[in-house]
Structure formats: structure tokens, C-alpha cells
């Protein structure tokens, strides 16, 4: 398998698997797929720092590990601080001649909770200090590993176990925190959004992020059949619908210049995306309408930014 490539259309993707088969991600997990693709983009010369969460738990139960590249997990909220230490450590050891000079990509991997909630401070600090690292946020829109609890990445109207839909509540009452824009606000060289339903776009963006000098952030939409309550075979379809409805636009921001990767003359109605998912099942028409308006507004804002700060 080493060094072999698989051709798909005009794309060449390595056949190497950096996360071994036999991991314990759920059946049909979008995050598992996204991780698999991201690792193919990064190759062997990496050190991955991983937050506590689905990826960490599904790939590292003592005495076993799924990882075929150097990998470290310590805690939940410190991934960006940890990778800062790894990056600075490697740099200084090479500078002082204590280890041979070579290219090793420092990559941080965390979920939405570990990024936009508890991990925000460390991430902001690492961005500000301009460490040379790639941060991958695998966003399944809740604290999935611990049982589908809400995070600041949970979308409006979604039912989670700590913000459940009930007689007095529609579930999440706040709008999803826009982590990609927060990353852009830190003035870092590369920010992108990605989705495993668009595998070559994802691979390309992770590769780009890894090659950039300085901080890079890729926010990866990760459909979760367990938490979002949809049939396991629909993961790719759900990811496509998220992009086609404008709920999760795919774009890049290189040195402050915006570029939309997938645009459509007309966005599909958000209902197409919401209907297959059990977590939105309770939403009434007026709520869906509200979501539609919000998506329209946000998409228009994004288009305006793209026009204003075109790549």
C-alpha cells in the first residue's frame, strides 16, 4: 500500500491509511471520514495534538492505538497551547542543532466543543502568537462523545440533551458561533471551511493549510448520524445539503482575501437539509422560516465580504 495512489477522476489520492481500520467511530460517522481524508492530505511528516472528544476516544483506547503517525492527547481545552509547545520545541531543537532540520507539520485536531467553547482561549492565544501550525476543527455541532450535549456550535433549533426541544423550548435558542470568521478576525494567513461530502476540496484545503507558514484554520463540517438522528447511509447527502442550502458555505480566506469554492445560482430551501434530521423534527414552519431568513442574511453577508475582499 505504501506510496500507492488511487485515481478518482483527475484527482490522485494516497492509498495510505494513517488512521488504522478497526477504529470505534459510529456507523456512518462523517467525522471519521473527514479525519481519514485530512490525514491523507497531511501525510507522514506530522505531529498531531488531539483534544479529548470523539476522535480521541475512538482512536486511542489503551493498550491500542489507531494512529500510524506521531500523536498526542493530553486534555480537552489545551490543544492549541499544546501544539504551540510542540511547534516551538521542534523549532528551537532544530535551531540549536539538537535535532536534524526537517519539515514536520504541527497539526491540532479538536471538536467543536474543544474549539469554540472550552478551547477558545488557547486557540486565540496560539493565533495571536503566530505559531506555525494547522488547526482542524471537526464540527459535529455538539458534545457528541459525551452524549449529544449542546455547544456554541449547535445550530439554532437543534435538539440536544442539554438544550432539548420540549414544551417550553425549541432546543438551541442561539445561533451557531461562526468560528471561521473568528479565525479570520485573528488576521491569520489561511482560513477555510470544508466538508467530507466534497472530499477533494477538503483534501486540498487541509494540504494548503498544512503548507502555509503561520497559523491556519480549517473548519470541517462533520455530519453525525447518532447525534443528528438520520439514517447512517445519508452522511454524504446531509453534508451536500448543508452546502447546497447555504447552511454551511464552503469558502477560503487567504491573507484576508475571500473566495467562495462552491456557489449556486440559487440556494436550495433549508427545509431539504432540516427534514431528514431527527434533531430538527420538532420545528414548526415559522421556526424553519426564521432559519431560512437567517441563512439568507448570512449568505448575503458572505457574498458581500467576497465582493469586498475578493481574492
Amino acid at each position: 500500500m505504501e506510496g500507492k495512489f488511487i485515481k478518482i477522476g483527475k484527482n490522485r489520492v494516497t492509498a495510505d491509511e494513517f488512521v488504522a481500520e478497526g477504529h470505534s467511530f459510529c456507523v456512518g460517522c462523517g467525522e471519521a471520514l473527514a479525519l481519514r481524508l485530512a490525514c491523507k492530505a497531511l501525510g507522514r511528516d506530522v505531529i498531531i495534538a488531539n483534544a479529548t472528544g470523539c476522535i480521541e476516544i475512538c482512536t486511542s483506547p489503551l493498550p491500542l492505538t489507531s494512529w500510524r503517525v506521531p500523536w498526542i492527547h493530553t486534555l480537552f481545552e489545551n490543544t492549541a497551547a499544546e501544539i504551540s509547545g510542540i511547534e516551538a520545541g521542534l523549532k528551537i531543537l532544530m535551531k540549536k542543532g539538537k535535532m536534524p532540520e526537517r519539515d514536520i507539520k504541527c497539526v491540532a485536531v479538536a471538536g467543536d466543543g474543544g474549539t469554540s467553547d472550552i478551547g477558545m482561549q488557547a486557540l486565540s492565544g496560539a493565533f495571536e502568537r503566530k505559531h506555525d501550525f494547522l488547526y482542524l476543527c471537526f464540527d459535529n455541532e455538539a458534545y457528541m462523545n459525551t452524549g449529544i450535549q449542546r455547544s456554541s456550535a449547535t445550530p439554532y433549533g437543534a435538539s440536544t440533551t442539554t438544550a432539548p426541544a420540549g414544551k417550553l423550548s425549541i432546543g438551541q435558542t442561539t445561533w451557531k458561533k461562526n468560528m471561521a470568521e473568528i479565525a479570520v478576525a485573528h488576521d491569520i494567513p489561511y482560513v477555510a471551511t470544508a466538508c467530507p461530502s466534497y472530499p477533494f476540496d477538503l483534501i486540498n484545503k487541509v494540504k494548503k493549510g498544512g503548507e502555509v507558514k503561520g497559523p491556519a484554520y480549517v473548519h470541517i463540517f462533520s455530519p453525525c448520524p447518532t447525534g443528528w438522528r438520520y439514517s447512517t447511509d445519508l452522511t454524504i447527502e446531509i453534508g451536500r445539503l448543508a452546502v447546497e442550502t447555504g447552511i454551511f458555505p464552503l469558502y477560503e480566506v487567504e491573507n484576508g482575501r475571500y473566495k467562495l469554492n462552491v456557489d449556486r445560482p440559487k440556494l436550495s430551501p433549508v427545509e431539504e437539509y432540516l427534514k431528514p434530521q431527527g434533531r430538527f423534527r420538532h420545528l414548526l414552519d415559522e421556526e424553519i422560516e426564521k432559519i431560512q431568513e437567517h441563512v439568507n442574511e448570512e449568505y448575503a453577508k458572505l457574498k458581500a465580504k467576497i465582493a469586498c475582499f475578493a481574492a
Partner: protein
Amino acid sequence: MTEKRLKTGSDFTWKDMEVGNIVTEVGNASVRKTGDWRTKRPILDREKCTKCALCWIYCPDAAIKPSEEGYYESDLYYCKGCGICASICPAGAITMIEEEEK
């Protein structure tokens, strides 16, 4: 794929623990037979298959492997039966059948 002997924590005495509980055996989790999770399994119709490899790239478990003849088939040791491959196959060459059927 023959059943691999599962290495579990219960095999280890405290003396066997590596310093810092570091795991030096790369990818040893591949002993786990996640194929046991399946309730459905994918069946490939080679007549319809165009060898496009989309099923290979979309499998979250990396369970689909290229065969000698260039077809992409599910490794049943690992395949969890999610049905994504059947769902995305542009040629409709993959069908999911109940695990009890042979």
C-alpha cells in the same frame, strides 16, 4: 481476514505498562473486528461497477479496498454496514442486504 487475537487491557500486569502509558506499536487497534457491529452488508455487482473508486474514498472506516482486478470491495472484517457506499455509488452497483442473508 482471519480473526486476530484481541489485545486488551486485561492482558497487562502493572509491570507491562510502558513509561507514561505510551503506545509504541503503531496502529495496533487494527485487531478490532468492527465487522461484528454490522446489521447490513454491502454486495457489489461487478457487472455494474465502473471502478470509479468513489466508494473507496467515501468509506469512513477505510474498509473498502482495491482488489487485484481493480474492483473496490468491502473488507468484512471491518465493514460496519453504514450503507454510505451503496448510497453514493453513481452506477448503483452496491446494494445493502440484511446481515443474516448469505
